[in-house]
């Protein structure tokens, strides 16, 4: 006997589900959600349009990086722009961009970290040592980071130190910077005693800092005949005189000295080329393409620290790698990272996949088949991530890969972190780099990942996508946001056989922004896996819901 079963698609909490057949998708799952958000219970709602943060940066092709450094009491928004050959940093905190700061063609391959008042800018080519971006009397400027850091591609702040990794000569190496400041203070030399190894000395005007240990490297600059790198042999009790291991050539008391990076001793080597660094809960995570290792402890080797006191040690690896350091982003106690398999959350002790879930309600196949397949890191091929408003945004910009028979694409998905539900975003949200800011207000900025777009040299901000109104029915380039929802296979509780779907009711709100008269085109496809063409239902298109 035939029986009627009422089915209600009224929960959308699982977001997109792609790892099971459509007919096996659980309640709350949808096959597709484009430009819908699922963070409000019992409904899906269209995202609003993003907004421009900056005007077009004249003479620049596109933006390759973004940062929102919260300099003490003076947070700024910084865009890294490329004209095709050079990289220039602009302060775009206000409508009027600051004077461009030359970054010497630096390729920004990570989300730049901030150390108190200095933004660290590594060159992803490994050509130049890192630079710093800082405020000089309120003006953002870029200069070389002092104290002789290695020409590393990646950086992070860990245990109070600047950590650098992967140079062209040592792609597997992690260097640890000086302890008290990433740029140790310089001390004025008031006297020098020329002498052979262990027989000369320098006397300074003010006491040296406590990290001038025997064995620590330091440099002398601006002196008469003594400029160079030395190793401390001993320091007087009053901390005013230092005897180097090396000879002191000249007895003129001028110039200055200060600690420098101990690139000879202050490092650890991992097994593979490093692709990113992250620090969380006292653990340093060192990523390669196919694995990650963690470093415990807070006293690195080098700087004259006796080996018995060194407590940093490499721990066994897990096979969660990092495909692009721009996908490394921290929020609360988690580090999020993307690789060829999926998107993961790590906390230094363990990891879990956000894309592939234990109950198969994830988007693992969407990630591996539609987004990352054929991806190879290169100029314009980028995986970037950012966290804002409890959502993790992940963008894959993939150039054509003939070998894998995949075309160039740009795709962005967003995960509502409290529930792990994923949705897709159309092209107005997608970035080569995201940058989240907390002060003076919460916002996330991004550099649009479309070099071909006419507004590729304009930064955008994302907050308004969570506040759709008649003011932002479109993205700032004028492209209307036209969301799409595609259901799982309906009515499977009635079995797989012949069914009669008759009465259907869609409960919705579709509010006109002006006089655009938006509609819902409702189509249906029969079969277990929507194998047939989508055909419009009789009542389609459904009108807006303004009286």
């Amino acid at each position: 006997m035939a029986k009627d079963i009422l089915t209600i698609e009224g929960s959308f909490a699982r977001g997109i589900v792609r790892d099971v057949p459509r007919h096996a998708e659980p309640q709350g799952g949808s096959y597709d959600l484009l430009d819908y958000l699922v963070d409000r219970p019992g409904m899906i709602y269209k995202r609003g349009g993003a907004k421009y943060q900056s005007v077009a940066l004249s003479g620049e092709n596109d933006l390759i990086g973004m940062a929102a450094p919260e300099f003490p009491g003076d947070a700024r928004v910084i865009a890294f722009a490329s004209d095709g050959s050079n990289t220039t940093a602009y302060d775009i905190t206000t409508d009027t961009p600051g004077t461009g700061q030359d970054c010497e063609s630096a390729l920004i391959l990570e989300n730049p970290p901030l150390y108190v008042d200095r933004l660290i800018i590594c060159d992803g080519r490994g050509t130049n040592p890192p630079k710093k971006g800082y405020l000089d009397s309120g003006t953002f400027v870029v200069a070389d980071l002092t104290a002789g850091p290695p020409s590393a591609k990646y950086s992070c702040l860990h245990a109070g130190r600047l950590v650098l990794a992967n140079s062209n000569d040592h792609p597997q190496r992690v260097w640890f910077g000086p302890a008290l400041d990433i740029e140790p203070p310089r001390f004025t030399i008031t006297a020098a005693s020329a002498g052979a190894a262990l027989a000369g000395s320098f006397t300074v005007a003010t006491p040296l800092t406590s990290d001038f240990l025997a064995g620590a490297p330091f440099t002398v600059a601006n002196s008469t005949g003594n400029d160079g790198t030395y190793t401390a042999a001993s320091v007087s009790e009053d901390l005013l005189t230092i005897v180097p291991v090396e000879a002191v050539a000249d007895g003129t008391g001028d110039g200055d000295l200060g600690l420098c990076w101990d690139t000879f001793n202050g490092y650890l080597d991992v097994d593979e080329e490093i692709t990113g660094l992250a620090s969380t809960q006292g653990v340093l995570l060192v990523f390669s393409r196919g694995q990650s290792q963690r470093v415990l402890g807070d006293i690195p080797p080098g700087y004259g620290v006796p080996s018995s006191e060194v407590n940093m040690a490499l721990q066994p690896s897990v096979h969660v790698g990092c495909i692009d350091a721009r996908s490394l982003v921290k929020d609360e106690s988690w580090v999020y990272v993307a690789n060829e398999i999926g998107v993961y959350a790590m906390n230094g002790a363990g990891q879990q996949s956000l894309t592939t879930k234990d109950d198969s309600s994830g988007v693992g196949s969407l990630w591996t088949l539609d987004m990352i397949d054929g991806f190879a890191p290169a100029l314009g091929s980028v995986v970037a991530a950012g966290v804002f408003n409890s959502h993790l945004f992940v963008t894959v910009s993939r150039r054509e890969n003939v070998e894998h028979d995949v075309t160039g694409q740009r795709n962005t998905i967003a995960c509502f972190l409290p529930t792990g539900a994923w949705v897709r975003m159309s092209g107005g949200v997608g970035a080569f780099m995201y940058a989240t800011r907390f002060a003076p207000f919460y916002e996330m900025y991004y550099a649009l990942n479309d070099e071909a777009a006419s507004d590729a040299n304009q930064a955008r901000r994302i907050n308004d996508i969570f506040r759709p109104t008649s003011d932002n029915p479109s993205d700032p380039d004028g492209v209307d946001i036209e969301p799409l929802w595609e259901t799982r296979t309906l009515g499977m509780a009635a079995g797989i056989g012949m069914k009669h779907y008759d009465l259907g009711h869609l409960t919705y709100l579709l509010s006109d922004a002006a006089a655009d008269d938006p509609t819902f085109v409702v189509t249906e496809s029969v079969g277990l896996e929507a194998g047939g063409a989508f055909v419009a239902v009789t009542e389609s298109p459904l009108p807006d819901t303004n009286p």
Partner: protein
Amino acid sequence: MANKVLRSSLGGLADKDLGSDHAESWTTAIIALDPASLASWASGPGSPGLVAMLDASFFTAEWAQISTSGLWQGAGLTTDGAASGGVWVTVEIHCDTGDSSGKIYIDGTLVITESPMTTASRRLEVGAGYTGQDPCLFYVDEVWVGPTRGSGAYFHDDFSSGNLDAWSFTADDITVVDDPFPPPPSPATIVRRRITLARANQGLTVRVQQQGSSAATEIYALETIVRSLDPGGGP
């Protein structure tokens, strides 16, 4: 259907002969000023007369225009009340030879009184009938003239005809167009609308694709009643 309005630009003018002289007249016009034109007028030249009542010899009894500082202004160059662009306002011109005064009301409030005014009311003219200023654009939604306030006994046109046939003559760039400043839509409500789904073997998938931009889009539920026609499990 979109509301039709008169659009006057670059010397555009519509003239209506009321047929006889009237000692007293009330002219009411709902007009909207182009924001760019208003900004241009307010930065120096002022506007030409936008709505005017004249005698049989085209001598002005009273008119409403915009001053060089963006205020409403009468034919005697009395000014008061800042004008706004991009919104519909009601302009009333009261010409009365009995008390020898011309008065202008904006949205019901008297802003200008000028005297002496002894000119009889015979011709209504709307439009920016002066070609020396560009931009010079404004719109008229509806206009009527009568012996008492609010009356349309002498003349009335809401431009719903889509033409200016009711007028005595027109000149230059004056046309009837869709309302460029439509009121915002009424607040949307959540609705539950029926859709007729297919008879299907095995399963059915529904896709809902929005077309056109919206202020807000929310979906709460898709309900279906499914009748199994093959409880045994299929052929």
